[in-house]
C-alpha cells in the first residue's frame, strides 16, 4: 500500500515536472523568437506547436530530400527558416549560434538528451546573401509577408 502511494507520488511529481518543463520551455521559446519579427506575431510555428514539438525532425527530414534532389526551395519546413525565426542576438546584436546549449534548438536538445547534428554542416546563424533568400522563401510558404523584416543583427530596428 505504502509502496503504491510512493509510486503514485513519484508519478505525480514526474508529471508535474514535465508540465513545468513544458511551460518553462514554452516561455523560453517565446523569448527566442526574434523580437519584432513577423514570426513573433504568429500564433504558432509553421505547424501547431504540439506538432512541431513531436515532429519537427520528420518535417525537416522530408524537406531535405525534396530540396537536395528536387531543388524545391519553397517549402515552409526549411531549416534556414527555423534559424531565421528562432535566432537570438546578444546585446551587441551578434546572432548567437542556435545549437548552443542556452539557445533555442540547443536548449531543448540538451534537456531531452537528443543529439543535434544538423549544425555540424548547416549554418547556425543566418549567414551570406543566400540566408536572406532561403528565409524569405520559408516566410512566403507560411503566408507571412516578409516585406519588412527585422534583421537578425538588429540593424534596421
Amino acid at each position, binding site marked *: 500500500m505504502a509502496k503504491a502511494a510512493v509510486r503514485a507520488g513519484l508519478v505525480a511529481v514526474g508529471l508535474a515536472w514535465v508540465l513545468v518543463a513544458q511551460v518553462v520551455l514554452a516561455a523560453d521559446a517565446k523569448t527566442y523568437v526574434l523580437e519584432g519579427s513577423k514570426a513573433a506575431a504568429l500564433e504558432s510555428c509553421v505547424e501547431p506547436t504540439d506538432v512541431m514539438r513531436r515532429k519537427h525532425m520528420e518535417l525537416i527530414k522530408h524537406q531535405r530530400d525534396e530540396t537536395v534532389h*528536387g*531543388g524545391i526551395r519553397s517549402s515552409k519546413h526549411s531549416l534556414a527558416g527555423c534559424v531565421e525565426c528562432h535566432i537570438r542576438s546578444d546585446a551587441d546584436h551578434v546572432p548567437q549560434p542556435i545549437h548552443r546549449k542556452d539557445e533555442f534548438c540547443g536548449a531543448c536538445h540538451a534537456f531531452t538528451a537528443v543529439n543535434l547534428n544538423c549544425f555540424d*554542416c*548547416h549554418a547556425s546563424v543566418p549567414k551570406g546573401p543566400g540566408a536572406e*533568400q532561403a528565409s524569405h522563401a520559408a516566410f512566403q510558404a507560411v503566408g507571412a509577408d516578409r*516585406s519588412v523584416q527585422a534583421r537578425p543583427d538588429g540593424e534596421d530596428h
Partner: protein
Amino acid sequence: MKDHHEPTDPTDAGPADSGRRAFMGVAAGITAAVVAPGVVLHSVTAAPRSEAVTSDVRWGLLIDTAKCVDGCSACVDACDRENGLNLQNKPASASQEHWDDQKAVWIRKVQLQDNQTGRVTNLPLMCQHCEHPPCVDVCPTGASFKRADGIVMVDRHTCIGCRYCMMACPYKARSFIHKAVEDQLTRVPRGKGCVESCNLCVHRRDFGEDSTACVDACREAGHEAIVFGDLKDPESSIRKHLAEMASRQIREDLSLNTGVRYSGI
C-alpha cells in the same frame, strides 16, 4: 539501365517550354526600395522552386580556352567566395604544402602543354557534370546523384565519406572535407567527412538566377571565357555558341557526355 547507355544528344530538345523559361526569367530578381530614411523594404521577388526539377533542361558550361588568361584566377576566387571555400582554415598541424593539396577546391586552373609544339593552354577544370557519371556509378550509398536537370552533386546527408567517387572521377573534380567546419554559409552546408564538388551554383538555379559565380567573375574580369546555360534550349546562348565554334569534351574517349565543353583544345 536503358537510359544509361544511350547518350542523349544535347541538341535534341524541343522549343516547347521556352515560354515558361522566359517567364521564369522575368519572375527572378531581387529588389530593395528605400521608403524613408533608415527604412528599407526588402522585397525578394525571386521565385524559389516549388516543383521538382525536370529533364526539360540540362545545365552546362562552355569554356573558350582562347579567352582564358594565363595567371587569372577570377573564376576560382569567385567560386571560393560563392561556396564558402574561402572560409576553410588550415589546421595548425598541417604544412602549407599538405594543405594546398588537401583543401577543398571546386575549380582548378589547369595548364595543358602540347609536347610537340610547346603550346600551353590554360583552362578552368571543374566537375564536368557527366551524363553518365562514374562517381554516381560507384557510390555505395546513393549519395552521389544526378539531378534531373543534369547537375551532379553529393547528398551530404547520405555520404559516408568513403571517397570511392573521388577515385572514380576522371577529372579529379571532387574534394573531401577532413576537419570539422565552423563557418558555413546558409546556402552551402558543409561538414566533416563528406565529399563535394562543383554543383553549378545549385542555389542560384533553384532561385531562378541565370548565371554562375564563375561566369559572372570571368565577365567582370573582362574575359568572357565561360558561358553558362541550358544545353537543351536551342535559343540559349550556350547552344548558339556551340553551334558556331568547335568544342570538345575532355576525355571524350570515355563517352561520359559531359555537360562542360571546351573550345580550343
